[in-house]
């Protein structure tokens, strides 16, 4: 069957030697096959099952007597059979391996497979099929978990922001109502002061737009990061969080200082989730300083790019963490706040871990606590000159 010319055997000794080598090689191949968890199917030039290998028969969806000698289109469901035939065709042209992932319903359950197809022996192809169901399920579970976390964190973020948002909306609403009522009162004057009425209406229009802008900002904020992982500028996230909390900081008399890395660290992240972690750390820091003199309420946020990692630290001058809580502070339902649920840091840590980073807490030597978030950095924002 082989198209290659047979080896030239000159002497009986050569013959004996070649035979032994062949036997050894066959044994080796058999041993390799035995050890492989994969199934193998040898397909003819017109996609008929010629031969197979399976470590045990339980791996096969249909018994060999059903599929051997039959065309793949008779065995596999039509769309999948076509996909496989395409892969076979490509492997005949390229030699392969052509890789195809697919799923099949087996006993009412989806099983996942990866086929690696290589051309062999002329127009035949060998399809090496691995059952990847366990890996696939773990990936799907992780994905569901990530989505749930993303949803939970958005709900939580809205809750955290709701009072700040109410304040932002109440200001233009106040301006609108007072201007409208002023205009109505001016209409009762004799003569009517039309200049005042007109100025009032102009201010109503302006403040209505201001209220809409608040709305848009919230919508953008929640939409922008809806489960989108993208290169995220850590310095920008810090700035956005400080903008959101600006009025809160004023009210709480907290002076904020930032020391941001000159080349902004970029991380691969869900922006909203990262904002949330930071927002949580900032609000916690403020809470920790609620009972100290207002001149001492100093919050410092630093960012740094450090050996391929972005480091964000939130440093307060508050009461610090009780040594007994230092280890447990990220556990759910551990809180030192009167009205806290103790979920903020637990969720934050889950988020940071999902970003392949770490979140840690320590007390400062000179008072207060520091929370440090470390994330793998992709590249600095502005390319620094190469060394």
């Amino acid at each position: 069957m082989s198209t290659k010319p047979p080896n030239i055997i000159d002497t009986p000794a050569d013959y004996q030697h070649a035979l032994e080598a062949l036997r050894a090689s066959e044994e080796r191949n058999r041993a390799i096959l035995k050890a492989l968890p994969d199934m193998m199917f040898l397909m003819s030039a017109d996609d008929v099952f010629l031969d197979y290998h399976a470590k045990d028969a339980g791996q096969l969806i249909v018994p060999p007597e059903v599929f051997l000698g039959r065309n793949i289109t008779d065995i596999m469901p039509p769309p999948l059979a076509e996909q496989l035939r395409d892969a076979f065709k490509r492997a005949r042209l390229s030699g392969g391996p052509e890789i195809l992932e697919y799923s099949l319903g087996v006993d009412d359950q989806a099983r996942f497979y990866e086929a690696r197809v290589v051309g062999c022996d002329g127009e035949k192809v060998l399809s090496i099929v691995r059952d990847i169901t366990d890996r696939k399920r773990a990936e799907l579970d992780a994905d569901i978990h990530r989505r749930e976390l993303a949803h939970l964190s958005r709900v939580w973020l809205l809750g955290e922001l709701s009072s700040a948002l109410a304040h932002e909306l109440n200001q233009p609403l106040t301006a609108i109502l007072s201007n409208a009522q002023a205009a109505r009162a001016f209409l009762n004057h004799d003569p009517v002061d039309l200049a005042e009425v007109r100025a009032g209406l102009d201010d109503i229009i302006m403040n209505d737009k201001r209220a809409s802008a608040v709305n848009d900002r919230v919508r953008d904020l929640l939409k922008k990061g809806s489960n989108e992982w993208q290169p995220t500028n850590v310095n920008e996230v810090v700035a956005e969080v400080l903008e959101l909390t600006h009025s809160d900081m004023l009210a709480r008399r907290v002076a904020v200082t930032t020391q941001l890395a000159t080349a902004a660290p970029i991380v691969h992240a869900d922006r909203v989730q990262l904002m949330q972690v930071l927002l949580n750390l900032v609000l916690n820091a403020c809470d920790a300083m609620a009972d100290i003199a207002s001149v001492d309420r100093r919050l410092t946020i630093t960012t740094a790019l450090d050996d391929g990692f972005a480091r964000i630290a939130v440093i307060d001058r508050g009461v610090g963490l009780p040594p007994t809580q230092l280890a447990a502070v990220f556990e759910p339902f551990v809180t030192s706040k009167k009205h806290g649920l103790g979920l903020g840091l637990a969720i934050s840590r889950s988020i940071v871990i999902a970003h392949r980073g770490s979140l840690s807490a320590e007390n400062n030597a000179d008072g207060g606590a520091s929370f440090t978030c470390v994330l793998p950095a992709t590249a600095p924002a502005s390319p620094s000159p190469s060394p």
Partner: protein
Amino acid sequence: MNSRRLTLGVVDDDEDVRRAIERLLRAFGHSVHPFASAEDFQAQRVPVDCLIVDVRLSGLSGFELEERLRLDGSPVPMVLITADADIVAQQNLNSIHLPLLSKPFDDERLITAIDRAVSGFPRSS
């Protein structure tokens, strides 16, 4: 409703809100002085019949301004206003007896609160 023409001060760091309340009080026939902060009011020493003061200000808060003026021996009738629902809740808990309106508020409520603050205020003269 009191028809007396009053001299009023409006202290709010939000320019839009400040201008709106100023216009509203002017429409009701009062003379109004705007201030962007508690410090601004203290520096200008304009005599007023009543102050309308936002609680959350960038410097001294509305509560702190009231306390300072009282401790300095020059108390002024005051109506506090706030856009922060938490402050209203806290005020109810602390039962501080300063009139406090949550933003946004109706003109009638503001005028009534001012009238009450002015008429109920112990006058030295």
